[in-house]
């Protein structure tokens, strides 16, 4: 069983983010959109926590909020004992070398006018690390580490395939030797055989650099295969969290159970006993949060229950390290 070490690298507590919209509410104030509410999880050193959920679940907002790429409106983020939300802009900027991000869309994030070498060197020069010669040596070694001939440093991003560009993005993010890498859907746009290469590479790099990953992912097969711990988000709230094997093997929350049962699988005999097809779609909530369970309108077991309508279920432990925000955990099995 996987157990989180006593002092995790990253601890997110009760993280919340509310956006103001341009619409006015009844009292004339701006209508608000809750993107995250009460999200807590931890990431152990050298381990991977996966954040899963559908579009609109808040997983990308969570990634950006914990790096302070957007400012959370509530909660705390503790990185190696340091309160990130208390850092002033300049200390925060210096701190950023310890936590980096890799994006899904390499076309939008790798400047097409820069050479691959300049792209990988850029974070080093921004943080004033090493001499020019040292930086170029670092670029060469990073390129080699992700499977390129260092001579490709002179080429530009458009000369590379999607999978190769993703390897360049990873080399750029790892050049600063960060302790935490936030990976936002890094393999979603790739063919399955290329996806396999990137996942293998990420596993190797994690072993080599002892880096921790927060892995934002919508593909549950990738999540289950790759991550140690999983956090399931729905409309900005944690529905379930726990060790990957336990969470996918015996999901406690009806939303997780529905997700697991909806995923098509190529494994003979691994198909779920029955397919739970949820009705409706995830729809953002503006203004006041309904008082009961946020998932209740779509929930196959809670829709008509008074408790679910009236009381927001707390994230309660169901087994060691495994918790679900449901009044009836384990009742719906895939």
């Amino acid at each position, binding site marked *: 069983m996987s157990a989180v070490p006593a002092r995790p690298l990253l601890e997110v507590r009760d993280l919340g983010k509310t956006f103001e919209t341009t619409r006015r509410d009844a009292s004339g104030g701006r209508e608000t959109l809750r993107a995250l509410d009460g999200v807590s999880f931890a990431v152990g050193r050298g381990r991977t926590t996966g954040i899963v959920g559908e579009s609109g679940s808040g997983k990308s907002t969570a990634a950006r909020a914990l790096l302070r790429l957007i400012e959370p409106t509530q909660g705390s983020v503790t990185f190696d004992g340091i309160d990130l939300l208390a850092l002033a802009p300049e200390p925060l900027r210096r701190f950023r070398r310890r936590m980096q991000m890799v994006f899904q869309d390499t076309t939008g994030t790798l400047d097409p006018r820069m050479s691959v070498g300049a792209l990988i060197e850029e974070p080093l020069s921004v943080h004033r690390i090493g001499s020019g010669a040292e930086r170029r040596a670092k670029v060469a070694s990073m390129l080699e580490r992700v499977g390129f001939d260092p001579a490709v440093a002179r080429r530009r991003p458009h000369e590379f395939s999607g999978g190769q560009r993703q390897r360049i993005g990873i080399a750029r993010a790892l050049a600063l030797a960060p302790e935490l890498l936030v990976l936002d859907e890094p393999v979603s746009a790739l*063919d399955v*055989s290329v996806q396999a*290469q990137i*996942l293998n590479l990420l596993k190797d790099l994690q072993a080599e650099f002892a880096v921790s990953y927060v892995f934002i992912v919508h593909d549950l097969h990738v999540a289950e295969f790759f991550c140690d711990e999983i956090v399931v988000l729905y409309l900005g709230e944690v529905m379930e969290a726990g060790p990957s094997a336990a969470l996918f093997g015996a999901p406690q929350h009806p939303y997780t159970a529905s997700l697991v049962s909806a995923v*098509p699988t190529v494994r003979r005999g691994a198909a779920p006993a029955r397919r739970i*097809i949820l009705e409706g779609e995830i729809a953002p909530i503006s203004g006041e949060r309904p008082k009961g369970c946020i998932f209740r309108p779509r929930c196959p077991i809670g829709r008509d229950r008074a408790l679910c309508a009236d009381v927001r279920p707390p994230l309660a432990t169901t087994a060691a390290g495994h918790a679900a925000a449901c009044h009836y955990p384990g009742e719906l099995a895939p």
Partner: protein
Amino acid sequence: MTGNVVLDIAGLSAEFATREGTAHVVRDVGFTVRAGEKVAIVGESGSGKSTFALALLGLLDPPGRIAAGAVRLDGRDLVGLGEGALKRVRGRSISLVFQDPMGALDPIKTIGAQLVDTLRRHQPGLSRADARRRAAELLREVEVGDAERRLDDYPHQYSGGMRQRVMIAIAIANDPDIVVADEPTTALDVTTQAQILALFDRLVARRGLALLMITHNLAVVANFCDTLQVMYAGRIVERGAVDAVFERPAHPYTEALIESIPDPARRGARLRTIEGLPPDLRRLPTGCSFEPRCPVGRGRPVCRTVAPPPVPLADRGPGAFAECHFAAERAGEGAA
């Protein structure tokens, strides 16, 4: 139950003229699809599956062109038909569902107007009032709630999943014999994907529709289609009943694709990858196009010099084959 042959493709080849020579993007593809059948073409980026879909529907623009072959729809060859005749066929006998419904819908027209247009384009005798009634029925058939009212909404007022339902309603509006669905669920969340696949299932069963799904997603095919066809470097390199192919892939490429999907049962293990890149379609090797990357055939003289003919694998469903010199033994490996 499946019925008559609806679509019969024979020897279809498509190519692009480039400065560095002709790219043979679709090479000698042939198969049939019957009423009530769900057939898949699976391939990675650059396999030729999208060009194949365009060629099939007569939508290939220069510098692309159909170099050879026939696309018989209900017995009539579409290759060589003029644009006017093709337009009468498309949306009527064969229709298309794309990955991105927002790009295919007109943002400044209501959903109702777009459905009415589609209906009246092919049924000019239909009055506006009747077409609108028919449009509401179609929305109900694709399970859009409150159909009457939602006819007057614009595409942006629909969610992604609901827009894809509208695309399906447009595709079936004129009662086609076959729907070609190009990555129809790729942009959707897994719960919405499950809803759309279940809807397709009901439409196929109820209408006796034939469905040709073009996708990169093997798992969707494994759970949803009857027949799998794997495309590599412009050719279908393996075809067979879905269960049989997943049970024992006869082509090494098919096997490698299946194995590269993360298997939670093998957590921590390294994933299978496919070394190298697909061949340059302007300079195809004389032998098997997968040979340079093939764990079975790499370096073998027969694989390097002789393009493998399709090896029939009769016990794997109608028209099953694999284009591999070792297909017969691989398909039979471990069999009783």
